[in-house]
């Protein structure tokens, strides 16, 4: 009996040992799956991405079929999203526009986050770098955006176009422009968190056991500043999608015949009382994208928050 008792008492311990090693990301995923809205957001976002990636393979209507007899028609079995004033199919345009918009939104935010995280971390951790990097941040914050855009476009449009072709060249330019103009708030956020975290006991403990700076930054501090960064990033995606449309409007973005959600919405705005469907679909898709990414961000923040780990 005694032997059995010991066996029973040891069992949980052995089970504990068999569990796979826990990492930050597996923990986070475990945590994330419990967040219903975040899962719904992730599902919606993945659906949208699949919709724009697979759409053109399934749906063959061309985006530039001009047919004035069909102009400004509402949704019908033939044109599920209706048509614009030139009678072009809005579904095809929304699918192709989504590719550009989602790609621009995500890529430019990734760029902004990477820049912001790097600069913020360096400024927050290394005292000597703090002042120069933060003055650089102030410099970027104080730049007047429109003249800067004009200069960037003037300097780089033709060379990027020549190097990567008209479409990829302009894509890189726009992603670069949006990324470069949006990293500053992230950098400030990250620096502030670093300043407070690097005084914490666990960082001192890490330093005491001889961890190098790079390991302290990557392993110990960054996971703790990720949550505000992710929130900023998710908000940034929606902003980037809309900034892209502003650029197109100024003639600095994609050529006018490249549909993007922002551009479709912009084209539709004057027709909103005559053909509301035209503005509705791209608007709704932007709304869905931004909302779903926000919920994913929300879930990620909770999942990555060490204090919430159960």
């Amino acid at each position, binding site marked *: 009996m005694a032997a059995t008792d010991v066996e029973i008492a040891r069992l949980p311990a052995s089970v504990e040992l068999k569990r796979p090693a826990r990492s930050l990301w597996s923990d986070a995923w475990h945590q994330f799956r419990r967040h219903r809205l975040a899962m719904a957001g992730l599902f919606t976002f993945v659906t949208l991405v699949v919709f724009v990636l697979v759409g053109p393979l399934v749906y063959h209507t061309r985006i530039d079929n001009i047919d004035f007899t069909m102009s400004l028609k509402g949704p019908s079995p033939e044109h599920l999203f209706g048509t614009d004033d*030139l009678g072009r199919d809005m579904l095809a345009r929304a699918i192709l526009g989504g590719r550009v918009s989602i790609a621009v939104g995500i890529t430019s935010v990734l760029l902004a986050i990477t820049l912001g995280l790097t600069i913020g971390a360096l400024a927050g951790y290394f005292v000597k770098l703090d002042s120069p990097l933060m003055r650089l941040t102030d410099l970027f914050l104080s730049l007047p955006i429109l003249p800067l855009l004009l200069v960037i476009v003037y300097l780089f449009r033709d060379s990027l176009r020549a190097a990567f072709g008209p479409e990829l060249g302009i894509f890189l330019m726009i992603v670069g422009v949006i990324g470069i103009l949006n990293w500053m708030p992230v950098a400030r956020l990250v620096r502030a968190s670093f300043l407070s975290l690097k005084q914490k006991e666990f960082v001192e403990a890490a330093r005491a056991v001889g961890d190098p700076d790079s390991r302290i930054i990557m392993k110990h501090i960054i996971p703790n500043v990720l949550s505000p960064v992710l929130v900023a990033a998710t908000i940034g995606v929606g902003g980037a999608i809309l900034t892209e449309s502003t650029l197109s409007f100024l*003639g600095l973005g994609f050529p006018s*015949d490249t549909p993007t959600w922002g551009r479709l919405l912009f084209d539709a705005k*004057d027709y909103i009382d005559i053909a509301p469907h035209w503005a509705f679909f791209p608007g709704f898709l932007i709304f869905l994208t931004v909302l779903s990414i926000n919920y994913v961000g929300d879930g990620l923040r909770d999942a990555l928050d060490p204090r919430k780990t159960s």
Partner: protein
Amino acid sequence: MTNQWRRAAAVVAVAAMTLAACGTTPPAASSTPGASATVASKRGAGDDLKILYWQAPTILNAHLATGTKDSDAARLVTEPLASYGPDAKPLANGLAAEIPTVANGGVSADLLTVTWKLKQGVKWSDGTPFTADDVAFTFSLMADPKTAVSTSDAAEGVKSVVAKDANTVVVTYAAANPNIYQWGVGTCCYILQKKQFEAYQGEKLKDAPGNLKPIGTGPYVVDSFKSGDVVTYKMNDQFRDPNKPYFKSVTFKGGGDAPSAARAVFQTGDVDYAWNLQVEAGILKPMADTSSKGKLLTVYGSSVERILLNFADPSASLGDKRGEPDTKHPFFNGADGKIVRTALALATDRKTVAQQIYGDGLSGKPGCNIVTGVPDYESTATADFCSKFDTAAAGKMLDDAGWKLGSDNVRAKGGIKLSIVYQTTVNAVRQKTQDIMKKNWEAAGFKVELKSVPADVFFTNTSPDGANHFWADVEMFTNNSDPDFTNYLNGWTSKQATGKANNWNSANYNRYQNPAFDTIIDSLRSEKDPAKRATLFKQANDILILDVVIIPVVTRTQVTSGIANTLKNVVPTGWDSEMYAVQDFSK
């Protein structure tokens, strides 16, 4: 965008000549439209006239205007000697008592001098008398290069403007000028008060307080002016016509955009006059048709939305030689140049653009001629060419010349692809036009890349993205002429070819160089017989159209404004400021 364009192209347009150029037939002065209709009006009987310009005026001295908005806002206060009426002929509703002609002795037979008789007893709004000295002074400001006025073109080739006596002004040209009204008529030459501007000559002109609050002879005086926002005027008690103006005050509001201006006049009825409703027909037509508050006011002038074909090579690889007049476009200006150009014109669907985007006569009709608006000059030889639209025939034409379709659906010959960059301004109407053109041109085997540039950049001579540099294969915009087309057409002569040497200030953006065309323009400079001039205008026009230097897309209305149903006596002209007869407006 026409308006920025107008300014940018002032070089071409302002100094144009008049048909009145003849030594044999005296120029006819038109009757005063609206004058008879306004007999019943009484000074100050109306309240406030609300005018909306979606571009806001920033200065009220028309000589320093940066656009039509400034010049038009100044027209309520300052006036020229005479206006150009709806029939493209001078109209004595300004400071001149009558229009000088050869018949009445006002114009010398050698077309060198014009003697203007001024109206008697006209006073400035500060109560001092208006005299010929003020006119001569205004000319001296325009002729002085240091003042850097935007109206200086009108003073070019003018030898002197002299006050012969208090009520007589003599304009003398350096050489016989068929365009005898070049100086004094229309938007070029609003007369300023010598007393107010005397201390601000030369470079100091830009600092003159009168630029913001000019003293004028016009029907209204500036009450308050917020630059870039709103001008309020009250009526000028000193105005020469005791029955005018009808309105006690005017609010000249600026800002917004064309669609919201259209809503303000058609839907909400907030304003009495909304300027330049450059809105797609799909929006404008239902708004104007169903409006109980306002109606559309349009009139044709010489405005043509046209596509220019580049005769120089715009390849970036040329470096310093890029787009210079001595380079040759790889397919528009080679051995097959005319075939490729003609195929492009054949694949251009003018009718659909005019119908669907300009509303089939609402704000434009299918274009064909570049010399248009004056019936005597309108060519008929081009009608057949313009009426054709057939992308298959265009494709076949290229096929026959050896331009074969590649696997990428683009025609090529000898390694040269028919790949086109097509630039224009950022403007919904133009982007729609681009979409239609691209579709059809690609059906004929061209590859088309669209580019749109903000209007203020596009119309800057130093901008590499601009119309003047024309570093693209085709470009599209609107331009217009004065009633005499000589100087306008001069913009396609060889020596006007734009390039680095002239800092892209010359008017021949196409870099079209054709001695036969140059000869016609030279003849126009000396030809005085109106019938022969008309023939020469038609010949010049036919060369530009049939040699496919330009493809006119749409002949546009010069005035496209909305007015309240209650507003009366508004007679639009296509050849002068929309405010040329604002004293006649009433309710």
